[in-house]
């Protein structure tokens, strides 16, 4: 049976538009160093490294694990590079946890990153061709379909945009700091991919995130309380087929059901204390509330409207500010997983939610077809 896996260290960079003071290796090393410091371990203590990042064309570096081996202390060690589109930060953490849960490795360093300033993201998202529509251009019709299906009022999107940016003010690492943001400002921002407005969209950031995962012995020996992994799951579904529902994708529902089953979660809204989920465009908050089983079909937007997803609400969502506030694409999924760990360990500082015992981390990617999730608790499974 699976070994227990503990998150004993978390680190990230200050996400920002351009990090012109570090190389790609430097960016990763910053996050890795912080995670190791948090874990009170050194690079030498690590016996395997797992990295994840979005397409190589985002930085123009093919298979970056080769170039990064030295900087990540990986010489003489195994290193893997995971690539599952936008969910990659999450699936990377899942692969890293597999190494521990299988008993193959004892102390794994996992990192995810993007240095978007060193490439042209929209060009890369368009496959290096003209006519690239960007992620927003792809998801906008799905968002329209959700709004039409659920009859949600249009201000729900604005509310999420405001909530996440106000949460970001409490997160020293977050990229976007918009202290004056309010509903009117979001409403009046230009339409980018109808019906998605600019202030309802994520930024492009340079940033990296790292975690140290250990086996049970490592978790017991950690001086700070670890976050224990109670479940991990990944699901992939075909991106296009007749009758596909990309608005409430089955892959997401199945991923959540799998990870909840592992963690003994039967009533998500009651059993989960905080969710860090992947919301790159504000309407994805209500959509994922439904997809992850926190609300019934067509009802997810009510959680937002009623303020339940605020830090003081029944189910705080993205207290870190989420992807809407910081989006180094390859790292964003891991940031969700890492912020969930911080909430369980009580290290989230100003954006800490009180009394967190159970946290969920979630990431998605591709044509809303790749999903990765984990459930963490402050006690052992």
């Amino acid at each position, binding site marked *: 049976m699976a070994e227990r896996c503990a998150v004993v260290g978390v680190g990230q960079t200050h996400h920002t538009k351009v990090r012109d003071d570090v190389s790609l290796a430097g960016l990763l090393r910053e996050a890795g160093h912080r995670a190791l410091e948090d874990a009170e371990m050194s690079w030498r203590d690590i016996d395997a490294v797992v990295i994840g990042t979005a397409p190589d064309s985002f930085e123009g570096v*093919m298979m970056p694990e080769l170039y990064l*081996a030295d900087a990540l202390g990986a010489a003489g060690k*195994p290193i893997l590079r995971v690539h599952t589109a936008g969910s990659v930060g999450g699936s990377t953490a899942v*692969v890293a946890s*597999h190494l521990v849960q299988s008993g*193959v490795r004892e102390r794994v360093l996992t990192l995810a990153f993007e240095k978007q300033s060193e490439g042209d993201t929209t060009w890369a998202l368009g496959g290096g061709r003209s006519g690239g529509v960007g992620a927003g251009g792809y998801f906008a019709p799905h968002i329209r379909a959700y709004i039409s299906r659920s009859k949600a009022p249009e201000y729900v999107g604005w509310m999420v945009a405001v909530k996440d940016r106000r949460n970001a003010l409490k997160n020293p690492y977050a990229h976007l700091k918009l202290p004056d943001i309010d509903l009117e400002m979001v409403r009046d921002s230009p339409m980018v991919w109808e019906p998605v407005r600019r202030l309802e969209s994520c930024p492009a950031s340079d940033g990296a995130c790292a975690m140290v995962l250990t086996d049970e012995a490592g978790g017991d020996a950690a001086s700070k309380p670890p976050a224990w992994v109670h479940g991990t*799951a990944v*699901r992939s579904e075909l991106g296009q087929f007749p009758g596909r529902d990309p608005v409430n994708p*089955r892959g997401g529902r199945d991923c959540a059901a799998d990870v909840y089953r592992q963690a003994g979660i039967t009533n998500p809204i009651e059993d989960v204390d905080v969710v860090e989920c992947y919301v790159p465009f504000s309407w994805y908050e209500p959509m994922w509330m439904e997809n992850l089983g926190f609300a019934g079909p067509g009802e997810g937007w009510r959680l937002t409207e009623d303020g339940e997803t605020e830090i003081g609400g029944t189910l705080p969502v993205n207290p870190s500010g989420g992807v809407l506030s910081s989006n180094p694409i390859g790292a964003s999924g891991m940031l969700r997983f890492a912020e969930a760990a911080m909430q369980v360990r009580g290290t989230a500082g100003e954006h800490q939610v009180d009394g967190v015992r159970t946290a969920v981390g979630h990431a998605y990617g*591709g044509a809303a077809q790749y999903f990765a999730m984990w459930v963490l608790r402050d006690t052992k499974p």
Partner: protein
Amino acid sequence: MRDVAIVSFARTRAHAGVRETEAQLLFPVVAGAIEQSGIPRKEIGFTCSGSADYLAGASFAFVGNLEATGAWPPISESHVEMDGAWALYEAWVRLQHGDVDSALVYSSGICTRGDMREVLCLQNDPYYLMPLWADHVSLAALQARALLDTGTVTEADLAEVAARSRRAAPGNPDAQVSGDVTAASMAAEPYVVSPLRTGDCAPLADAAAAVVLVAGDRAREVCERPAWIRGIDHRIEPHYPGLRDLTTSESTRLAARHAGAGDAPVEVAEVTAAFSHEELILREALELGDTVEVNPSGGALAGHAVMVSGLVRIGEAFRQIHDHGRRRTLGHATSGPCLQQNLVCVLEGDG
């Protein structure tokens, strides 16, 4: 560790200039591996693949490949932007958990779409090495030169490897090039980049391959002669060629040790040597004596499908056990310039 075996292996022939899309290339290979495995498609517990966007010339290229797996209902699946051998490693790790018993591993690459001597330059440090456009053949030539300078290997030895690989290949219908060539004829070929001649450099190919892994006794239920993974490990070296001793492969030595390659004699070794001198370096690192048959398939020198070759070597090592009744074989994969990263997989048949 849980016992995990390879129970099936399917591949396309290696050849250049395929017209099919990657998904079209994969579809029959994945279907073939699954059918041969005896495991129903819906029972497969985990899927992992390896491929590279920069070969396809499009970001997110791997997404289209998912269609070949029939990912509906949704499947538990992951992907590495690496040779399929590392996808096999990830699947092997996943099967250790005990909750699922079978995994599908596949890999594809249409490298002849682009010029690998340009594309693979992007594997280098973007600040200091990439702007030099030091392509992988030139870097390999540096390594070959370093090896020759030790005095332990001559150009004639390189030519012998090149010739032997092509002579072996006719026995393998999936090889790209083969022929009754002599070392002398290989030695008379022009240099591509001195000291590497045309025969010393693998012809590049497009291909797809797939294997199915099964854990525990189920492997014996579905397969007459499964190839058990007795050990599998991978290691990487520093990136900068100037920081490494290019005449040895320390990471291969380490991976082999951790995989237990030396625990018992190996009869056949399939190693990914895209250049003839690499085979000599790998033989030494893997401690392969003269009794070991190396690359009976012809190896990468008979057709090198980037991102697939490593998985194919492991598959060929499986074939040696499953089809030819061998007892203990080894498959090796490599990644990066001058054998920077290496994976070793030790296989054993029952009895």
